[in-house]
């Protein structure tokens, strides 16, 4: 049983505490022993940065001007990323929970306990009684190893990864339409596009460095159409803002395509020769007149017409989307409805003409290619395809009957914990107690486990529920590759050794496999050896890494996959010859009907709650909620409410209010702003426990991608009648640095 009994004590020992100084304090003229070129640990842009090492500590960064993607630019998370490396909250040795307290243990003691418990559970309940939950902020080497570890090491079918909460709708949509899952164009195509459609993408806060390319496009005279329920900084800077009701993306996309058809702006030759399925799609889209789309979405018909004409008439144009359209119970439909526009206008496969999802996590792309997904094997191969299974089993030397069947998505895995099917759990690189929907149910899942192991370098809200916590490494203490959102494979370089007794994650996983008696499949002693195995495993798959080497990545500032041979330079733009990856080399239209969000507002819950991010925090916040600067800028979640709605409810700006959904409730300070729709409220999700927006969100899954509906559920707001509650947010000390520094 792994309940959290002494929360205050755990927080006192393992944080989150705020830390805001380089090792040894702020110093002028420090002697720098070496400068290590690497990349940022956070989002999918994977900006280049140089880490400064002095006395075997990372003491700062220097812009990496010569890396072409970001040319030295970084967001505030990237600037302060190095403060993690020597953070006082770092986990320095293995921990075993005894009587509710974490106690220091040796590696042998901790690993032997893990292995004996896993063996016990598997012999009692079967191999599938262990679940593995991985993540996409790991290097690709580690993500490959996690998939192999679950299948060949533990022999369990249950493995999934946190990209399930991020990129899967886009991946499924891309696979259906194009037969491959990767952004179609490199970022350098953006400045060549006359018109950009940014759907559900708050680029300013979630992909700050992408704005370099967006503004280059603007400087060239380009236009932006931004589709978002909130007036984000990106929406504010755009030319046309379609401020839709959350969950109505299909109506807007079909409405725009309707205009494009009506005005004769489709590319009939491309449709005829390069695609399938147009007639069915056209039939549905013709019902979505601008007026009908306007009625559903709350965007005016004029704006839908303007947007359709602007994109339709432009010679070049790109459509990019992110979690805003993907985090829905019809996320794949949303994605496909935008791909239909791309295909109908033939704007794909040329400079400045293209399409892409803006992948969220640092290795969101690489992490979904090499077999840590429930139904996937290395090289974007499928667990369901007998040929693919045979190929990988031969490659691993694993008897085919030992390769488990496909597993289930992470939300379903947590259901299986509550149902008692999964008894043991190993998680790495994720924090479900913040990032999974309906956290109260997630807590019940974790509390019901017989044995729970967590690997992390900070104690997360989810680590607290573990029986054993093993200290892994931060990105600066290991090497390996990641694949950025544009499909560019880049190399993370090691700057310093891990602190204390912390070990590289691949060592930990190998060691558990070895002690489980499966060592013959895990003779991999360095990231380079793992990479060599993975690129060979991917050979001939869609995500073919065979021709990529560490040296080639260094020489070319990254290599775009597919890269099938040593001589191949990589593939920055897919579909250059208008050939797609389905067997007939054609792309597919999908007729998309509008269904909307699973939960629609009603008399009891009259508002639509949507959740999202702020620029100062990364995902579940386990890294960024410990960095003083970032926390000072945004110390706690808040709820954005339109002034009309606030007035009706008699809520003042800054007042704490209770936000309630069918699953839970939370208390948040109100931020009364005209930048949100009156029928919609917004809470950023990066916090845990009583501050978690995900106490409220709907765990309803997309039927294909199994992504939860984070972006739309029904909610209500209640005024709190208590004199004891502070009026303003307790941690909010202003958005200026002066407060931070006065505190020193």
């Amino acid at each position, binding site marked *: 049983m792994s309940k959290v009994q002494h929360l205050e004590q755990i927080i006192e020992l393992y944080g989150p505490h705020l830390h805001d100084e380089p090792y040894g304090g702020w110093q002028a003229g420090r002697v720098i022993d070496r400068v290590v070129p690497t990349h940022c640990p956070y989002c999918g842009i994977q900006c280049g940065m140089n880490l400064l090492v002095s006395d075997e500590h990372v003491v700062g960064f220097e812009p990496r001007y010569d890396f072409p993607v970001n040319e030295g630019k970084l967001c*505030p998370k990237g600037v302060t990323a190095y403060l993690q490396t020597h953070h006082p909250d770092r986990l320095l040795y293995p921990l075993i929970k005894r009587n509710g307290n974490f106690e220091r243990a040796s590696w042998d003691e901790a690993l032997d306990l893990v292995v004996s418990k896993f063996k016990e559970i598997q012999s009692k309940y079967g191999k599938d009684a262990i679940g593995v939950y991985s993540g996409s902020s790991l290097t690709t080497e580690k993500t490959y190893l996690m998939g192999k570890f679950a299948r060949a090491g533990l022999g369990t079918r249950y493995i999934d990864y946190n990209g399930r909460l991020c990129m899967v709708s886009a991946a499924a949509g891309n696979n259906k339409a194009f037969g491959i899952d990767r952004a179609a164009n490199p970022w350098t195509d953006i400045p060549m596009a006359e018109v950009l459609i940014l759907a559900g993408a708050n680029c300013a806060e979630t992909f700050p460095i992408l704005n370099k390319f967006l503004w280059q496009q603007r400087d060239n005279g380009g236009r932006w159409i931004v589709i978002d329920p909130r007036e984000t900084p990106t929406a504010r800077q755009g030319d046309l803002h379609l401020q839709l009701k959350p969950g109505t993306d299909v109506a807007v996309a079909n409405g725009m395509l309707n205009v494009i058809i009506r005005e004769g702006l489709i590319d009939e030759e491309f449709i005829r020769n390069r695609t399938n399925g147009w007639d069915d799609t056209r039939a549905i889209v013709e019902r979505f007149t601008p007026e009908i789309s306007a009625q559903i979405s709350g965007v005016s018909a004029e704006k839908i017409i303007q947007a359709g004409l602007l994109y339709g008439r432009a010679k070049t144009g790109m459509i990019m989307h992110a979690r805003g359209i993907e985090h829905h119970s019809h996320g794949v439909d949303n994605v496909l409805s935008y791909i239909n526009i791309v295909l109908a206008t033939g704007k794909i496969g040329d400079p400045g003409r293209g399409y892409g999802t803006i992948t969220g996590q640092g290795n969101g792309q690489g992490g979904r290619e090499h077999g840590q997904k429930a139904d996937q094997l290395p090289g974007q191969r499928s667990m369901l395809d007998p040929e693919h299974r045979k190929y990988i089993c031969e490659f691993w030397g694993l008897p085919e009957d030992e390769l488990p069947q496909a597993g289930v998505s992470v939300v379903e895995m947590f259901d299986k914990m509550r149902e008692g099917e999964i008894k043991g759990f190993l998680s790495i690189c994720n924090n479900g107690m913040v990032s999974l929907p309906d956290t109260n149910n997630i807590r019940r899942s974790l509390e019901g486990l017989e044995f729970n192991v967590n690997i992390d370098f900070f104690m997360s809200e989810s680590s607290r529920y573990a029986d054993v916590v093993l200290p892994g490494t931060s990105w600066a203490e290991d090497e390996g590759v990641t694949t950025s959102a544009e499909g560019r494979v880049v190399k993370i370089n090691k700057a310093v050794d891990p602190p204390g007794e912390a070990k590289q994650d691949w060592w930990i996983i190998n060691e558990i496999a070895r002690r489980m008696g499966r060592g013959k499949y895990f003779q991999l002693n360095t990231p380079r050896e793992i990479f060599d195995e993975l690129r060979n495993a991917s050979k001939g798959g869609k995500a073919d890494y065979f021709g990529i080497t560490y040296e080639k990545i260094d020489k070319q500032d990254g290599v775009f996959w597919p890269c099938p041979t040593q001589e191949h330079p990589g593939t920055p733009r897919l579909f250059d010859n208008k050939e797609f990856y389905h067997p007939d080399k054609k792309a597919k239209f999908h007729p998309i009907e509008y269904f909307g969000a699973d939960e629609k507002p009603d008399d009891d819950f009259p508002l639509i709650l949507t959740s999202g991010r702020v620029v100062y925090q990364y995902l579940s916040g386990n890294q960024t909620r410990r960095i003083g600067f970032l926390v000072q800028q945004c110390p706690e979640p808040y709820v954005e409410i339109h002034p009309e709605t606030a007035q009706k409810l008699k809520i003042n*700006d800054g007042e704490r209010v209770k936000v309630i959904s069918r699953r839970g409730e939370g208390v948040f300070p109100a931020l009364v702003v005209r930048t949100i729709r009156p029928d919609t409220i917004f809470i950023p999700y990066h916090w845990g426990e009583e501050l978690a927006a995900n106490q409220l969100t709907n765990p309803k899954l997309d039927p294909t991608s199994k992504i939860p509906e984070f972006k739309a559920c029904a909610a209500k707001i209640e005024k709190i009648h208590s004199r004891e509650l502070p009026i303003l947010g307790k941690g*909010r000390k*202003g958005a*200026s640095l*002066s407060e931070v520094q006065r505190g020193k």
Partner: protein
Amino acid sequence: MKETMFIDPQRCIGCRSCVSACRECDTHKGYSMIFVDYIDRAETTATMPTVCMHCSEPTCAQVCPADAIKMNEDGVVMSALKPRCLDCRNCVNACPFGVPKYNSAMHLQMKCDMCYDRTSEGLVPMCASVCPTGAISFGTYEQIVPLRRTKPVNAHVFGNQRVETKVYLMLPTDEDEVTVDGCGVFEGRVAVGSKETKTEGSWIDTQVEESDSRNEF
């Protein structure tokens, strides 16, 4: 040094990357000399970065009784010289842009010095290096201006005072000068340490203004 800074507020996304990076400059000792403020969060997400404009006739230097604020040969107005600074805060109160701050821990005025330790070695200042959008850019007039659709303006009129600056604001305007209304009159700022909260605007603005009005680190 032919290069200078170009501040393009309409490109600002409010990420405060510049604010965090400014601390990394060796001579700044972990203090940031740059400010990013919401214009009016209740109405818009618009934000504005403020760096030292490096005036050709700097008000801060003119009002300094100890002659502690020097301009170098490149036209960069430096932070107060520590041995000379009297803690009088004249500069803090006089600057029309509200840039210099008083560091009570160090008994010293501090302000943006265009990362002189970096620029003197041919490096780009930290804020301009990291800024994602080019809201803060560093380069020559010839490098930056032709690429933009905004107009470089470096003359500012505050009531009776006209100020020319080394740093350019990039504005969507036909005007040659920026005119700030109401500057001839003393409007009464929020008193130092005042607990009074404003009744209008968002609480985020209120917090920012309260802390910034103290003009202190």
